[in-house]
């Protein structure tokens, strides 16, 4: 049982730059939590504070109730996988994995057994004698993961581990890592700026911005029910249309959508897949471009005032540039003062 608890942790760098601002998070035993956010949101700094590579300016970090806030990295029960793999090129694969075990003065036969077992786990059995530069990028990342796992850490920390890999390999590896994590039931904190990774791997996603939490929820909830306009815009593609609500109707130029909230300015959020199009002249919007992705199409639309929005359609061949269309949202959300004030399925 390994529970990670982060309470009011802050990090202020020289020059009063606040990287992390009173961040709190509880990660349950065996849970995989993704820290997701744009560059500079503080997610890597937070992970490095959990790993002991940055000293928090304030707050408390505990693992299984034991405070580790000011422990050095070598004294923490954490294992970190770095973005650049960070393998030691002067050692072969076996020595990379055995290094931490040797420091713990384990007997040679036990080291051999543990290293071989973890190599088997990551699908690299028989690769022990290879030098690291003889491995592909994916194999190097597996070695980096194995190097952390062989020490049986209580908390596994993954710092954008797939960022340097190509798309195909990234998709395969994230499935493998998720399988291994679930098999070992190891509590994991995963930093990424790739929403696909977060949505496909995480038990919960923490969306971060400017060192603060925007939303913590299950991936499907974060996608379907974003609590702030930032989350709505950051996760997936979202049309965020600024306008005014008057008598229960959202108005932006020729666009009118029923919205039962108090009168005033609002941001209407519509996913492209929740925006149906009906051919009409002159229509609420005009088709700017149609992109056919094979499985679906994406239609770029211009509102009369020039605002561009997107709609996902199943038959892109039905639309062409310059054509007028009416917009029919099937699911909407609305934001005011940076908070969600309405969400509905129409």
């Amino acid at each position, binding site marked *: 049982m390994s529970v990670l608890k982060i309470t009011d942790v802050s990090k202020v760098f020289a020059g009063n730059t606040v990287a992390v601002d009173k961040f709190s998070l509880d990660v349950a035993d065996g849970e995989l939590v993704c820290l997701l956010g744009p560059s500079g949101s503080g997610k890597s700094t937070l992970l490095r504070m959990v*790993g002991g590579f940055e000293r928090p300016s304030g707050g408390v970090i505990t693992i299984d109730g034991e405070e580790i806030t000011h422990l050095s*990295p*070598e004294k923490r029960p954490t294992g*970190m996988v770095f973005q650049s793999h960070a393998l*030691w090129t002067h050692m072969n694969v076996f020595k990379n994995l055995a*290094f931490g075990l040797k*420091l713990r003065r384990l007997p040679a036969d036990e080291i051999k057994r543990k290293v071989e077992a973890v190599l088997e786990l990551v699908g690299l059995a028989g690769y022990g004698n290879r030098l690291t530069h003889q491995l592909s990028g994916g194999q190097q990342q597996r070695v980096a993961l194995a*190097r*952390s796992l062989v*020490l049986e850490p209580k908390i596994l920390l993954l710092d954008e581990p797939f960022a340097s890999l190509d798309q195909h390999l990234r998709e395969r590896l994230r499935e493998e890592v998720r399988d291994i994590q679930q098999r070992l039931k190891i509590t994991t904190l995963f930093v990424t700026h790739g929403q696909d990774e977060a949505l496909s791997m995480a038990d919960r996603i923490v969306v971060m911005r400017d060192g603060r939490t925007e939303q913590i929820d299950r991936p499907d909830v974060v996608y379907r029910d974003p609590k702030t306009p930032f989350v709505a815009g950051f996760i997936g593609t979202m049309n965020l249309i600024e306008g005014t609500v008057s008598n229960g109707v959202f108005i932006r130029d020729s666009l009118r959508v029923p919205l039962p909230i108090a009168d005033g300015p609002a941001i209407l959020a519509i996913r492209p897949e929740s925006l149906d199009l009906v051919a009409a002249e002159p229509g609420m919007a005009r088709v700017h471009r149609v992109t056919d992705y094979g499985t679906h199409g994406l239609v770029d639309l211009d509102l009369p005032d020039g605002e561009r929005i997107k709609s996902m359609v199943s038959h892109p061949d039905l639309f062409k540039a310059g054509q007028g269309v009416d917009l029919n949202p099937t699911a909407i959300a609305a934001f005011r003062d940076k908070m969600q004030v309405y969400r509905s399925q129409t």
Partner: protein
Amino acid sequence: MTDTVVTAQRPLLETSERRRPVGLLLVAIPVFLIAWLIIWPIINAIGRTLWRADANGDVGFTIASYVKFFSDQYSVDNLAVTLWTTGMCALFLLVICLPIALYLRFSAGRLPAYVQALAIFPMFVPSIILAYAFIRVLGPNGMADILLNSVGLPKIRTPYLTPWGPVIGLVWDNIPLTILILLSGLGGVSNQSIEAARDVGAKRYQVFWHIILPRITNSILVALSFSILGIFSSFTLPYLLGPASPEMMGPFMQRTFREVNDPIGAITQAVITFGFCIVFGLFYVRSVARNQGK
């Protein structure tokens, strides 16, 4: 095939036979200069010491000049003091420069910038200025003596005109180059590889011993090879700061040539000096070749 396709198929780096003469021409001038100004004098010097005219004027192979050098205790003492000075300098350079380079590599901020500027400063000071500054500070009745005297302490035993004089001067003179080469090597050790080592439980000295040191071994060899090559054949600092006897090979060669008027003896000393230097040169070449192999 369209022009576009033909253009796309052409490699970025032209490797065709047509371009080969241009490449050879580019390296021809430096190769010629090296052959003319370095290789030829070496061959000439070796030839002049091994093929000499006897009393009858007949030219033949002889190692008499080398036998004379190694049977002369004074010459052997000079070679020994040169080796000792070089070894001491190498040791002190490593002991002084490695911690400074480590500090500069793994620190950030204004202080490391000042330390780096100070460490590189000797590069811009001519050896002769350095030698006179040394004499004024550590020489008899120099600044150190005056300061000690002012607080009632006895004078220091000055290293001026002892074998330690050239050691201090040469170490100071070679600190910038050594630090720059070590820093370059340390630049190849990523922060993440060090953090990864700490993450698996390595303490700071274990990180240094198991992760950093193996990765900069080549840089240490290169730095020491460069310094040793310069120190072994140095002249100004040993001449101005060192003892009259035994003396380092640089001043010894100059004196043998000018004052003793024995050019063959001086050339023999030069060839012997070259023989030692080439060993360190081979260390350097081997290190470079090993790096390129990787």
